[in-house]
C-alpha cells in the first residue's frame, strides 16, 4: 500500500474569541487508509471537520492536502482540490429529486459549473455517472423522489453519495451511522466499505464496533487535543485512552 501522507494537520488550533476549542492538533492521514476519529462529546471532532473542510479557518497551524496548504481556503476551493465531506445532520437538497442531488456533485467534478449553453439532459457522461453513483448507494429505485421524502437511512445513504459525487478521493464522513438501528448500521458500514474503495477516508464515529471493523487506524480526540493515534488494537490496549474515554466499554 502507498504510504505517502495525503492529509496533514500540523499544530492546528481553533479558538472562538477567547474560547479555545482545539489546540496543537497533529494528524497525518496516508493514502488509501481508513482513519477513524473518536472522542467523547464536545471533544471538538465536528470542529476539526469544519476546520479541515473550510467552514471556518483554523486560528493556528497548517493543514496540507497532498503537500499543498489548504487552511484558510473557502469550502469550494478545498472541494475542488479533492477533499469532500458529509454532514452529521443530513444536508441535502430537499426539494430536488434524488438523482438531481447526485448530479449536482457530478457536474462539479466535470467542471460544468456555469454551463448555460447546453441542456443538461444531453450531457450523457454526467447523467450516466450520476446514475452509476445512484446504483452504488442503492437508491436507483428512488430516482425521481424528492430527497426530502426519503426515509432517514435513505437520506444518510444519499448524503454519502453526494460526498462521493464530486469525485474527491479524500472523503470525510461525519457520523454516517448516527441514529441508525443495528441492522441499518451494518448496511451503512458495508456501503461505506464498498464506495470508499481506493479512496482515503476520515470518519467520525461513536459506534466502536463500526470503528474497529471498518478502520485501519484510529485517532482519539479529547478536549481538543489528539490523545493517541494507532491501529485499533493499539488504541484498545492504550491505558490513557481507556481511562479518558473507552473506559467501561472496552476494559
Amino acid at each position, binding site marked *: 500500500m502507498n504510504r505517502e501522507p495525503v492529509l496533514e494537520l500540523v499544530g492546528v488550533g481553533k479558538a472562538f474569541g477567547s474560547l479555545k476549542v482545539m489546540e496543537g492538533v497533529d494528524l497525518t492521514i496516508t493514502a488509501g487508509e481508513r482513519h477513524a476519529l473518536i472522542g467523547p462529546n464536545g471533544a471538538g471532532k465536528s470542529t476539526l471537520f469544519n476546520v479541515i473542510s473550510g467552514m471556518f479557518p483554523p486560528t493556528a497551524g497548517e493543514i496540507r492536502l497532498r503537500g499543498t496548504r489548504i487552511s484558510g481556503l473557502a469550502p469550494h476551493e478545498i472541494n475542488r482540490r479533492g477533499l469532500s465531506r458529509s*454532514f452529521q445532520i443530513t*444536508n441535502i437538497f430537499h*426539494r*430536488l429529486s434524488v438523482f438531481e442531488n447526485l448530479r449536482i456533485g457530478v457536474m*462539479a467534478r466535470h467542471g460544468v459549473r456555469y454551463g448555460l449553453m447546453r441542456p*443538461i439532459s444531453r450531457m450523457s457522461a454526467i447523467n450516466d455517472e450520476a446514475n452509476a453513483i445512484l446504483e452504488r448507494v442503492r437508491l436507483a429505485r428512488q430516482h425521481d423522489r424528492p430527497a426530502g421524502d426519503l426515509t432517514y437511512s435513505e437520506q444518510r445513504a444519499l448524503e454519502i453519495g453526494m460526498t462521493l459525487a464530486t469525485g474527491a478521493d479524500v472523503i470525510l464522513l461525519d457520523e454516517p451511522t448516527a441514529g441508525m438501528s443495528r441492522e441499518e448500521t451494518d448496511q451503512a458500514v458495508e456501503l461505506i466499505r464498498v464506495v470508499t474503495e481506493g479512496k482515503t477516508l476520515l470518519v467520525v464515529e461513536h459506534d466502536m464496533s463500526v470503528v474497529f471493523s471498518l478502520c485501519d487506524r484510529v485517532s482519539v480526540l479529547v478536549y481538543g487535543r489528539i490523545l493517541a493515534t494507532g491501529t485499533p488494537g493499539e488504541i484498545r490496549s492504550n491505558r490513557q485512552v481507556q481511562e479518558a474515554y473507552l473506559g467501561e466499554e472496552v476494559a
Partner: protein
Amino acid sequence: MLARVAAIGVVLAVLIAVPPLLGIGWQNAMTNMLIASLFAMAFNLLIGQAGLLSFGHAAFFGVGAFATLHLMLAIEDRSVSFSTPLLPLAGAAAGFVIGAFAGYFATIRSGVYFALVTLAVAELLHSLAPHWDGLFGGEAGLSSMRMPWGGLSFGSTLEVYYLALGWTALSILLLWAYTRTPFGRLTLALRDNEQRVRFMGYNAHATKVIVFAISAMFSGIAGALLAISNETANYSLFSLHVSAQVVLHTFVGGSTVFLGPVIGASVFTLFAFFVSDVTRSWLLYQGLVFVLIMLYAPLGIGGLVQAHMQHWSRLRWPDLAPAYALAGAVGACLTGAVVFLVEALQIVFSPEYAAARRRLDGAWPPIELFGLEWQVFSPVTWIVPSLLAAAGLLLLPHARRKLRESWDGVLERAEAERTAEPEPQLAGAVEP
C-alpha cells in the same frame, strides 16, 4: 406535455391574431400586460428558482429603459445606426452590467438582508436620478422617438405590441431553456441548500451574482420595451411602487409555478385597464388581494391551478362543485361589501365631495354608486353592505369546512395511491 405545448400554442395564436381586431386602448393594455409578464418572469428567476427575494427590481427595469432611450436618442440624431427591433438589446446589456454590480453587493448577505440591500439599491437610483441630468434627464426624464426600420414605421401601437410580443415570447423561452441547463439545476440547488452547494465545489457567491445579473438582464429587456412603447422614461421608474408591483404580480400568480408570474401580471394589468376608469382604489384592492393570497393561498393562483392539474383524475366534482359554489357565493358577498364600503368612503372623503358640501353650505349631498343615488346618512345605504358582509361572514366557516373536507378526500386518495405502490427497497440494503 403535448397538451401543454398545444395550450401554449393556442395562447400564442390568440395573442397574435386578436389584437388587430381591438382598439388602441386594448392594444396598449396588452402591450403593458406583456411587459409586466416579462418583468415578473425575470423577477421570479430570483425568488422562484434561486430563492432570493428582491424588493428593488425596479432598478434594473428602469436602467433598461434609460439605456434604451439613450440609444434611441443617438439613433434620432443620426450619430448611431441601429435596428429598432433590436433596441431591447441595450436594455439587456445595461440590466446585466448594473445587475452584476448590484448583485455583487446584495448577495454578500442572504435572507432579509438581501431584500433590504436590493431595496436600497433601487432607492439609491431613485434618489440620484432626478439630480443627474446627463444620465437620467433630471426630474423630467428622457424622451425620444421610435425610428422606422426595414420598411416598418413603428408608428402604430400594434407594431409596438408585436415587437413586445416577440421579445417577451423569446425571453420566456430562454428563461425556460435556462431551467434545463446545468446552471439552472445549480440555481435550484442553491435555493434548497446554499451551504451544501459550497461544499460540493461551487462558489456560491459567484453563482448568485450570475443568477442576479441574468434576472436583471431580462428585467432590463422589459424596461426597454416600456421605453420603446412610451418613448419616455423618468426617475419614477425606480420607485418602490414599481418594485412592489412586480412582487405582487409574481406572488399572486404563484412563484412556484413556471408561468405563474405571467398569470398574476396579466390578471392585474388587464384588470387595472378595466377598472382604473371606474375607481381610484384599484391599488388598495390589489393590496387586499395580495394579503388574502398570502394568508389563504400561499402558492398563488398558479399553485391552485397546479394542484387541480396534479390531482385531476382524483377530483370528485359532485363533492367539489357545491363547495366551490358556496365559496364563490361567500366571496361575492364579502367582495361586494368591501367594494361598496371602499367606494362609498372614497367618495365621501374625496376633495370633490368636500367642495360639493361647501357649495351646499355643509349639507351632505347623496353619493352616486353603481348607477344609484345613496343618501349618506340613510340607514338603507349602510344596511346593504352590512347585510352582504353578514351573509358572507355567516357562511364563511361553513364554506371553509366544505372546501377542506372535499380536498381532504382528494389528498387521501392521492396518499392511498402512493402507498399502494410496491414498497421501495431500503437504501443500503445488501443484495443477497
